[in-house]
Structures are given as C-alpha cells and as structure tokens.
C-alpha cells in the first residue's frame, strides 16, 4: 500500500515524532494550518514554519449517523481549539467511558483515515486524553 497524506505538506517530523505542520505570520502573529503562502489577515509575506501543539481543547463536536464521503456512521468529528489560536476540524475517536464534552483535553495523532485501491490516505484524528 502506498501512503499519501490527505493534503500535501500537512505533516512534519518534529522532536516528538510526526506533528502538524503550520506557519505563523511574523508581522501580526496569526497561525495557519494548513500552511498559508502569505498572511491572509495582514497580507504580510514573512511567515515562519512551526509545528503545532499536540494538545487542544474540544470546542464543538457531533456524532454523525449518516455517511460522509469517506466515513461510515457512526463517526465523531469536531473542532479542536489549539493553544496557537486556531480551530482544527478533525475526526474524533469514540471512547465509551469518555463521552465528549466541550472543553475536554484532546490529543492529535496521525492515522490512515481511508483507503482507495492501493492508496492509504493518512490524516489526523483527535482522541480524549
């Protein structure tokens, strides 16, 4: 199987393994994930690459009972508020004894999200700590 990221350039090898690759505008401080070519806020061109924190707080969530393009029901998904000030939408792990609640601590990890023929699409998911 060939492993392919769900979007090019979203992962980086960091000190603690694979992390989400983001960047930050050196003029106004805005963070971007996925990385932005320029600052969409202040239009500045001076951006530095950073790795995103692995942990954030659950901002909102849902458990879907109908399929999406790649996921069969039931699947959970939500926005996670990261310390860098951005919210990331991602699939969430359903853990029986850890029901979702807004504000709970979540941690990101990489995983194969779906396969198409001989291709494994690798993305990110969050699970409750």
């Amino acid at each position, binding site marked *: 199987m060939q492993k392919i990221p769900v979007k090019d350039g979203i992962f980086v090898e960091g000190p603690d393994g694979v992390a989400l690759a983001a960047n930050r505008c050196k003029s106004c401080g805005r963070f971007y994930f996925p990385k932005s070519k320029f600052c969409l806020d202040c239009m500045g061109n001076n951006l530095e690459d950073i790795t995103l924190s692995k942990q954030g707080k659950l901002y909102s*969530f*849902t458990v879907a009972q109908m399929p999406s393009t790649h996921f069969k029901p039931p699947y959970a998904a939500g926005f996670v508020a990261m310390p860098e000030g951005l919210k990331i939408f991602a699939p969430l792990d359903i853990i029986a004894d850890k029901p979702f609640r807004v504000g709970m601590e979540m941690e990101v990890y990489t995983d194969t999200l779906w396969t198409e023929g001989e291709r494994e699409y690798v993305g990110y998911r969050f699970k409750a700590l």
Partner: protein
Amino acid sequence: MREVCIIGVGQSTFGKLSERTAADLGCEAVSEAITNAGIKPRDIQVAYGCRMYDAMTTAQSILKSVGVTAIEMINVENACASGATALRCLWKDIAFGLYDLGIAVGVESMTTSPVAGKLIPPQKDDLDGHMGLTMPTYFAQIARRLMETHGATVEDFATVSVKNHHHGCLNPRAQYQKEFTVEEILKSRMISDPITLLQCCPNTDGAAAVVMCSRSCAKKYTTKPVKVAASILLSADYFFKKADLTSFTMGKNATRMAYEMAGIGPEDLDLIELHDAFACEELVHYEDMRICKPGESIPLLRSGATALGGKIPVNPSGGLLSLGHPLAASGTRVVGEVALHLRGQAGKRQVPNARVGMAHMLGGMESGLEAGAVGIHILTV
C-alpha cells in the same frame, strides 16, 4: 439611483417531482409571476436565471417556453444564495437605469441532479469536507455551541421545527403540510447529534420567480408596488476571523448594511423569511439580525415572538423546514413570500398589517471560509 419595486411573484409546486424537468418547474413559476405582475411576457427586458446543479443557460431554457427570447439573459450561481444573487443583480440593473423591467428565476430539480439522495460532495481540495465536515455535521456543531453558550436545549431546536411546520400547514405550496410535536421531532431518526431528521430541511424540486421594475414603470401595472428598500449581497470572510460558531459574521454585516440602506432598524420589521436549513440555525440568525439582544435568542423563541401571532414572525411560509429547499429557488422564493405578505395576499399564513419585511438567504460551504455568501432584501410598502 432609482427606486426599484416588486410587481409580481410566482412559485411552482414544491416536492419530489422527478418526472418534471427544471425548465418545466421554472416555467410554472415564471408564468405565475408574469400573470401576477399583469405584464406581457415580452415586457421583460432582462432575465436572471440560477440553478446549482446541471446549470446551463437556465434562464433561456425556461423563458423560451413563455415566448421570451433574444434579450439579455444571465445565469448566476452562489450556492443556496443563488436566488438572492439573481435578485441583487436584477435590482442593480434597474436601480442604475440599464433596464426598466426584468425577472429573476431560481430553480432546482434535486431529484434528477447528480446529488440526488446524497449529501453535497466536497471539492477535491476541500480538506475539511474530506475529513467529514458536511452540512449536517457543521450545523450540529453550531447546535452544540448554542447548548454550551446560550443554554439551548434539544427541545428548543425542536420547537423551531414545530413552529415552522405549523406555519407550513397554512401554506398550500409547502412540501410537508403536517403538524409535529416536540417529542416527534426529537424521536425522528438521528442525523448528526443533536440534529434529528425532522430538524433538517428536505431536498426538494421547485422554482420561484420575481418581477422587478422601476417605480415609474410600476405605475403602469399596479397601484400596490412593493418597494425594494435594501438589496445586499456579501461573500463570506475567513473562518479564522469568526468569534464563535453561534454567529455568521457575514450575516451580521449584511443585515447591518441592509438596515442602513433601508433607513430602518430591526424594531421596524413585521416579518422575516430566512434560511432554516436546520432548525438550530434559525436561532443564530435572530441574533445576527438583532431582533433580540446578544445571547437572548433562546428566550425570544420561548416567548413565542417568532411564531405567527407573535411580535416578529419568522418564516411564516413554513421555512425551508416544511416548504423544502430547492437550493437556487429558495433565495427568490423568500423575497416573493415577503412581497405577498406586504400586499396582504399570503392567505391563511398572512402576517396582519405587514408593512416591512426582510428576506435572508445563506449559501455554500467553503474550506477556510465561514460559508459562501449571504443575500438580504428588505421590502416595504
């Protein structure tokens, strides 16, 4: 800039009508609007058509059936705000003197479209869409935030649906003319927690058309023209600029601009027609439109103020929840609905003595943006 009026509105049957073509549905709405306006088909100088799925020369395919050809026809797309976009374009043409009289028609044949029976699929580069973000999962998260920040309950969301389905029972054009209880809404199939099936608008086939003309031109046809006091169209801003999921920044801004243009405030409104694709969504718009104070959408709903008979009825037509949602048609349909109320021709669902009304339509979902576009029209008599 000239004053622009609405002199005719038309709507086709709404429902699952897979045996009928989009052109046929469009023709039904356009014919009704022409008759309603008291114009001859060839009085139409310019036409805007809109349709999200399988759109090609939509206006031409419809208008040739009523004898209108060889004039300027433009076809536009702005997701569910397509119909509002077509009207905004028509308004500009007349306000700035390019034409005196024209028509905008929105149509959708969902049952014969490539998305029939499916969710709208994400674009190839739509990362969030591929990660599982769909319309129901997005609005479910809005509902969750309302529960977190506003003290909303699932019963509140169901109450919106009960209200709009009650209104729909008074509208012979609604796809579903059936009363539901809070319990029935909540017991219907779960779609995306906390949204159940009966809190979602159905996919629908249908069309709606509106005839606009200049104030001086309107005198030829009617003694009761409806004035377009504001016409606003805004595209969405970046998602990262959004303070919370419980507000649409573009909706808030577009409404403010519309109030300024019309020279009125939210307290002057007699009715509102808005995009209630999901029941929880209606509550978000209450605050963005400032018909209540920030954070007070739930008490406003519970007070009954937004039901027919209340202070500011919202979706007296039955809304998308009971009328159904033929995507591009909904934006023209809501403007036509408000015009009917201001003319006192809305039948059993009539808001008594309505003089000022607002029509809102939200459209689209685009990775990185808070949505696609929003159109606001304020009408007065």
